[in-house]
């Protein structure tokens, strides 16, 4: 059986226009030839540094940004071929949760209006029973019935994010793109929201594309992880395998760069040096070669294909050889990471108790 969501060769380029005639002066290659699958009830985390195209992947696969090329298939329907009307109906099955809980809710609509809108739009409720369904949604997401009449500005960040989740959940979607859903929240609230997302997934079998730069949250949430560098997937593997045996040098640097509060440990890791190269003019060959500790002549001219190595997919010429020699797998997660994971687990235990 094929996966619920299939993304093949997803590409999004932004033309840069200059001058009076709006001539195309260049192209930002935000997303290049990205392919992945997400199964029912599965979480695929998409990680990478800011500006690497994570969010663009999420928006392009929902067609909030029209992809330049590629195919997105959800439950056998090719989303990228749909006409506007069919696409609007299809949105019922694919939703998004935004990063900013302050900007993603219409400030002029009460919570009840916000949640009733998708229900009425997709005819999942009638004007008669919509209030009951809104109430049910609120309690599913850990809010109280009396919150329905309030406006977004009367809520805290965590509560607003719950409203955002309830809105995404209203249409009972098959797929939710979570675009950094917790990075605007503080740690204790993050734990509640992450666990809410996990519980909802267990209950409704939703597939998540979980975009994040927070490896602690990713480790807690994800079944599989795709690491994105400059608009391309450089490594994709099961979460446990990826954190235990990162194969791509960029993945290793990313894991090593997770913040550690212990000053004596500061120089142990070798984080990536320099800045992300411009997507307007990406480096030749392997896009990572200017910052890669393993880079050789071959990397400058020849772009490594994403290929199967063991259970992972890796785009590095030295994926097979480098791991043995240069591996510093995270046998012991850093103190900060362990503390974060402990908080996440504690919050979960408290909620289920």
């Amino acid at each position, binding site marked *: 059986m094929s996966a619920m969501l299939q993304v093949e060769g997803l590409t999004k380029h932004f033309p840069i226009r200059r001058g009076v005639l709006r001539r195309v002066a260049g192209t930002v290659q935000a997303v290049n030839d990205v392919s992945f699958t997400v199964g029912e009830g599965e979480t695929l985390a998409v990680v990478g540094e800011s500006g690497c195209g994570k969010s663009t992947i999420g*928006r392009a696969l929902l067609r909030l940004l029209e992809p330049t090329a590629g195919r997105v298939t959800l439950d056998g329907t090719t989303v990228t071929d749909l006409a506007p009307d069919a696409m609007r*109906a299809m*949105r019922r099955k694919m939703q998004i949760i935004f990063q900013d809980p302050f900007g993603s809710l219409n*400030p002029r609509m009460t919570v009840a209006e916000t949640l009733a*809108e998708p229900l009425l*739009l997709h005819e999942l409720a009638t004007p008669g029973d919509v209030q009951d369904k809104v109430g049910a949604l609120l309690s599913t997401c850990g809010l109280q019935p009396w919150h329905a009449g309030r406006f977004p500005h009367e809520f805290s960040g965590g509560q607003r994010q719950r409203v955002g989740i309830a809105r995404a959940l209203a249409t009972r979607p098959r797929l939710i793109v979570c675009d950094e859903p917790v990075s605007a929240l503080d740690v204790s609230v993050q734990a509640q929201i992450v666990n809410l997302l996990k519980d909802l997934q267990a209950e409704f079998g939703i597939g998540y594309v979980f975009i994040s730069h927070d490896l602690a949250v990713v480790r807690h949430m994800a079944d599989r992880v795709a690491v994105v560098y400059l608009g391309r997937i450089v490594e994709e593997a099961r979460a446990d395998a990826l954190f235990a045996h990162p194969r791509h040098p960029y993945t290793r640097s990313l894991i090593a760069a997770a913040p550690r509060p212990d000053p004596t440990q500061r120089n142990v890791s070798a984080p990536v040096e320099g800045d992300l190269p411009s997507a307007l003019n990406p480096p030749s060959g392997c896009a990572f070669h200017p910052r890669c500790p393993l880079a050789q002549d071959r990397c400058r001219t020849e772009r490594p294909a994403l290929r199967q190595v063991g259970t992972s997919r890796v785009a590095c010429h030295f994926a097979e050889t480098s791991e043995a020699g240069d591996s510093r797998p995270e046998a012991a997660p850093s103190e900060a990471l362990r503390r974060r994971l402990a908080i996440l687990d504690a919050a979960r235990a408290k909620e289920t108790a």
Partner: protein
Amino acid sequence: MTAATEQTEAQVLDAPMPVQPWWQRLLRDPAALAAALVFLAIVLCALAAPLISPHDPFASSRAVMQPPVWAEAGNWTHPLGTDGQGRDMLSRLFYGTRLTLIIGVVSVAVGGMLGSLLGLLAAFKPGLDPWVMRLVDVMLSFPAILLGLALVAVLGPGAGPVIVALAIATIPDCARIARSIAVSVMKQEYIEAGRALGLSDMALFTRYLLRNCISSIMIFISLRFGQIILIGAALSFLGLGARPPTAELGMMAAQGRDFLLFAPHIAVIPSVLIFVIVLSANILGDALRDVLDPRLRS
């Protein structure tokens, strides 16, 4: 503790901060309160003109250029005196204010609505943006007075052409302001959220864009109102507006010009009234902006 009391307690802790409604905050400002009272009084007098006018505003009497009651030769038959043709100033003032306000309100409403719609559309459909804004630039290059002259030349004098000219003069500024407000709203994530829900363009435009722009646009329009009254009075003063014997404040000031030395009240009283209307409208508009614009809230 029972579940019921727990819930009420949580509800109390969870309750939003009580915020005074905007009109209460508006009236706490003494200048705004005074302006509101003055403006309200003027509007009521204008609306009630047929009921409260002591004389027929068009009927001449023998008492020509009679001074107002506070002057030596004044009397209570004509509290504000009479004009050059012996018509009662107070009655004409009521009727004149009514026409001036009607011209202002209608032209600002029509022009404001059309202009805002253009601006919102330009922001909503980026493809339309350059076309709409070039059109607005062209409209902006015609001064309202010149436009009024041209329209009167085509349509003949009267209140109608003045309203059309003023409405057209209101469109470009409103379009620009509405566009700039709407562009910033369009960048908000909730617009994308609405799209992600599968909303139609129409629903997105009215429920998301318009609803979040309307208060800022209304503030701008209320600030424009005073200016439009002034331009309308100027057009009437130039003889382009209402035709005599209709009373209109700008025209009354123009008619008094010939008697400025012997009977200054004929020109001065309507001019002062124009001044008061514009001033109170502007103070109200400013206060409204202070109260409604969250960025200015202390």
